[in-house]
């Protein structure tokens, strides 16, 4: 049972990153291979700021900086890329990944750094006859809150409606008077802000290193593809699934653990070529 919750924790990180990829892909049709390094940058910014303002200050600043970075990325990278080939996108966002990793390595070095959880969440609680760190439950709660918040926003707000419309038919949406470039800037900012959020809350669980983004991004793409590429619900379900598979794999078949998510993805795509969410969203 404890293992299932640990799977949920990993799934939570996957969800927070995957949903950002889905948001960016939806509006810009750009696959952002640098998303994992945004997660990593978010973790380092939070680490740096936490020295002065504590964990929560680090969280707020990290999300804000990453969101601002998202606006710049949208304007100067994703918007021009939206008209380009997938190969160009791959090269550019991959290049961005190296730039960000190098920048972090230059500033903070390549050694592992650790971040303590905030005092408020550093305890353990009894659970299923043993104990479990409160902080891990906090991570799951954050992911659930984001999932619920995003779902409600997309479903019931005006802007959410424009986002859904623009991610299937940007031209028609623009014709109705929506400035889809401004909408994209907002949506990308939310996506990168969530990368900052997940980087921050990953800090106390994972050791910080410049390559921490590269390892999680593979599983994230597995989640996005398994979920059906542009489906938020699909990404949510797939993140939970891949989180479990990853974690149970590590516990029971460690030598196969890194392949299991890919195997699941292949299986899902064989059964449902358009992903879990199928044709719709």
């Amino acid at each position, binding site marked *: 049972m404890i293992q299932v919750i640990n799977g949920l924790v990993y799934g939570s990180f996957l969800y927070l990153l995957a949903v950002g990829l889905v948001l960016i892909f939806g509006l810009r049709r750009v696959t952002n291979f640098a998303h994992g390094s945004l997660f990593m940058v978010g973790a380092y910014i939070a680490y740096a700021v936490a020295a002065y303002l504590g964990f929560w200050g680090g969280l707020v600043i990290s999300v804000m900086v990453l969101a601002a970075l998202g606006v710049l990325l949208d304007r100067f990278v994703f918007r021009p890329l939206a008209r380009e080939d997938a190969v160009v996108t791959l090269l550019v966002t991959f290049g961005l990944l190296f730039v960000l990793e190098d920048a972090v390595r230059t500033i903070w070095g390549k050694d592992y750094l650790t971040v303590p959880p905030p005092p408020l969440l550093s305890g353990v609680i009894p659970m299923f006859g043993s104990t479990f760190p409160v902080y891990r439950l906090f991570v799951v709660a954050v992911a659930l809150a984001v999932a619920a918040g995003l779902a409600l926003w997309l479903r019931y707000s005006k802007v959410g409606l424009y986002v*859904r419309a623009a991610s299937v038919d*940007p031209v028609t949406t623009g014709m109705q008077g929506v*400035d889809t470039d401004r909408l994209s800037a907002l949506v990308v900012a939310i996506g990168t802000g969530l990368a900052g959020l997940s980087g921050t809350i990953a800090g106390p669980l994972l050791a910080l290193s410049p390559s921490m983004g590269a390892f999680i991004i593979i599983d994230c793409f597995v989640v996005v593809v398994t979920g059906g590429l542009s489906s938020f619900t699909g990404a949510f379900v797939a993140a939970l699934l891949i989180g479990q598979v990853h974690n149970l794999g590590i516990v029971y078949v460690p030598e196969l653990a890194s392949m299991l998510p890919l195997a699941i993805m292949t299986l899902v795509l064989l059964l449902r070529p358009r992903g879990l969410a199928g044709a719709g969203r």
Partner: protein
Amino acid sequence: MTLLKLDHVDAYYGEAQILHDLSITVGRGERVAILGRNGVGKTTVVNACIGIARVRRGTISFGQKTPASIRHFTAARSGIAVVPQGRHIVPGLSVRENLLLGAAVGRKGPWNFDSVCALFPILRERAETPGTAMSGGQQQMLAIGRALMANPDLLVLDEPSEGLAPVIVDELGETLIKLGAGETSILLIEQNFSLVHAVAERYYVMSKGAVVEEGRLEGLTRESLKKHVAV
């Protein structure tokens, strides 16, 4: 007062020039038609107005404004709503959501969800079903309803009769006459002569990306049109 004016426009897709020195105006209260065979550039006139085809020479004025660069939302914000060819109902959105999308431009006026549904009762009945699940005729009503939600001064319709059964086309004509009798000006792009005859008062005929004939509808007969349009 002119609502839409294309003044000696050359328009391109990439390097391919489609419109050649084309001039068209629609004034307030007018009902104007553009006729022409497939492929002569009728849709490109619309696309030039919404920033899909690039204007390299000449200007397009929306009301008083002559913007230097035309974006997808430019026309909508100047009170020009387009019912695009093929309707372009947004997949994944319900009928209600497609209508609300039409209100995105935020112009005030008589049209809202309730008044549009009073014009097309079927849209209220099917409000929660996906827009793309409806029949062609119903989707055309939805596309017109969505455009009305913008409370436009000018309604541009690109081949609205395409793919519709004759009785539905007749209904469409009645709706357009009703709308045209009110505050809304109409630019109707069509190959269906009877629909044009029922709705419009002035016409342009296009051929090879240019206007080759224009006039008032009284003077236009099926016979005189035959050389330009399949009737």
